[in-house]
């Protein structure tokens, strides 16, 4: 996998949100460091999982990666194009090749548009169709591809269930024939039975269309099921990144260990036998992250050094990256 040219390269991506105050002339009173320097690459046809607690910056990372939020710093390369320098036709080429599926299927479809208009939007924007009839044909084909009835094309989003809507979101993302899709917690708003259907659909589409995914999630078992490699985020930074089995079987970072020990095991005997790492306290505010290693206030093994020095992001074993002084 690594011998191929990566499809997506992210280098030291930073996204800060200014906190503004003032009636007429606004001044900045603080900075939310939502994403604070993350680096990774994704090979073609690979699925990279991005996991972490609520509020750790996963979603912001995914959206900034596509330029939906202007990045504060860092480089983003998608399919050979530098996203930060892209505008006009280059930007449209990136928009066509990189798509996103959102978490909330109730919020991600325009309630006043028909399914045909929603799925047809990328076709219209990128001039991929020349006539109304061609659009209808293409939309029917996409509906069939995601397992919906092609006759639904004149319905409105409110006539569908959550799982069906998520399929519509997938169909829209696929309409412009992309190479790369950011899946922003595409299943966490769905029922467990529907989750499996949507995940299977995503895997099936990946096999058939050779898609590359950035799969953002907080459900570790689902990530293990779908991803090739997994990155663990904590408070705006990636603390560990490794191939799936390597990460699940030999986690190095204490935060990863704690996360994995929180995954329920469907066997009470095994569950009682294992050692749980229970983290104390809450995630600190990204407005004022702790100095040194961001995890040190909650880390069970933190030493003096962790309070002062930011741990280096280094490759410990081939393909296994971690940011911790004690590994």
């Amino acid at each position, binding site marked *: 996998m690594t011998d191929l040219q990566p499809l997506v390269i992210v280098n030291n991506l930073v996204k800060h949100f200014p906190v503004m105050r003032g*009636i*007429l*002339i*606004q001044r900045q009173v603080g900075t939310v460091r939502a994403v604070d320097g993350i680096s990774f690459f994704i090979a073609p046809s690979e699925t990279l999982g991005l996991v972490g607690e609520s509020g750790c910056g996963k979603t912001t990372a995914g*959206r900034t990666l*596509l330029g*939906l939020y202007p990045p504060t710093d860092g480089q983003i390369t998608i399919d050979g194009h530098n996203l930060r320098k892209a505008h006009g036709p280059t*930007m*449209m080429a990136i*928009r*066509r090749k*990189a*798509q*996103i599926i*959102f*978490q*909330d299927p109730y*919020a*991600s*479809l*325009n*309630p*006043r548009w*028909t399914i045909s208009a929603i799925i047809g*939007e*990328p076709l219209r*924007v*990128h001039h991929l169709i020349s006539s109304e009839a061609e659009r209808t044909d293409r939309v029917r084909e996409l509906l069939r591809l995601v397992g919906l*009835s*092609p*006759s*639904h094309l*004149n*319905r*409105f989003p*409110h*006539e569908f269930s959550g799982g069906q809507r998520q399929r519509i*979101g997938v169909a*829209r993302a696929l309409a*412009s024939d992309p190479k790369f899709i950011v899946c922003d917690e595409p299943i966490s708003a769905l029922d467990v039975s529907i989750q499996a259907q949507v995940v299977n659909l995503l895997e099936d589409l990946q096999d058939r269309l050779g898609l590359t995914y950035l799969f953002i999630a907080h459900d570790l078992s689902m990530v293990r099921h779908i991803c090739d490699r997994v990155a663990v985020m904590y408070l705006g930074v990636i603390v560990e990144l490794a191939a799936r089995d390597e990460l699940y079987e030999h986690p190095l970072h204490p935060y990863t260990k704690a996360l994995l020990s929180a995954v329920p095991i469907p066997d009470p005997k095994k569950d009682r036998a294992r050692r749980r790492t229970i983290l104390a306290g809450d995630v600190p505010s990204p407005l004022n992250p702790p100095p040194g290693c961001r995890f040190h206030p909650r880390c069970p093994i933190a030493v003096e050094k962790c309070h002062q020095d930011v741990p280096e992001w280094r490759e410990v074993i081939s393909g296994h990256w971690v940011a911790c002084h004690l590994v």
Partner: protein
Amino acid sequence: MTVANPLPNIQPLKPLSLDELEAPPLTLSKMAWLKFRRHKMALVGVGILVLMILYCTLGGLVFSEKFANYNDTGIALQPPSSVHPFGTDVIGRDILARTIYGGQISLLIGLIAVMLETTLGIIIGAVSGYFGGLVDSLLMRFTEAILIVPQIFLLLVMAKFFAGNIPNLTILGREFSGSVVVIIAIIGLTSWPYLARIVRAEFLTLKESEFVLAARATGSSTFDIIFRHILPNSIAPIVVSATLGVANAITLEAYISFLGLGVRPPTATWGNMLEGAYNYIDKAYWLWLFPGLLILLIVLSINFVGDGLRDALDPRSRTI
């Protein structure tokens, strides 16, 4: 010997295509109508509005405008009779005919002032909400500056200021007092701040919504995002505000005209028919009763319709 086909004439059923099985889509306007019609008062309001519009339009076919403006002091202040069903005013004009032509002007003022108000409110609110930053700050402080001055004072000052020599206008063969245009303009120019704030709030919420982000990820233009994604989704409060705005504009016109700064006679409006009527409150009730009743009815019915629309268009109440 061949056995006769026992069912010789039955054709196989043509299988239905999936499209034929599909129920017609339940559009949002259909859903809104299903919710609206549960409001009895709103339906009554619609009924009264229709009757009023018929009264003002069909009535114009019965009486000529010349008749409505014809004065004969010899028959001044006559009580309702079979010749003048609503009586006559201080200079002997027929009040029935004047309420018909006055209604046309009052409704016209209401509708056009609201169009102006809504256009301004949408543009200012949309620009402010969508682009944010300094533009937003400047526009909103300006909006608030207008909001804190009571509208009626603003209207009176502007009415006085623009009262100069406005020539009469002839539109479609009818002559209007130029003051009609002034009244429309000043009502429209002072009523938009509330709507602008509503639209801005809608834009602030919707521009961060996931379907707008999805449109941006697709590469839709800013124009498309504003006019095809966000605006259609903020239409509900705009429609409600515009409906109530018509009633408000009619009332405001009545205020100004009652105080003698509004539409000049001989052009009648329900408001300027009330001008001077207070001198005859006990002596000639018909002077104020009929135009007053009409204003009351139209404002009430528009408000009922507005309430019905508010519920019918509320995206948060999805039950039918």
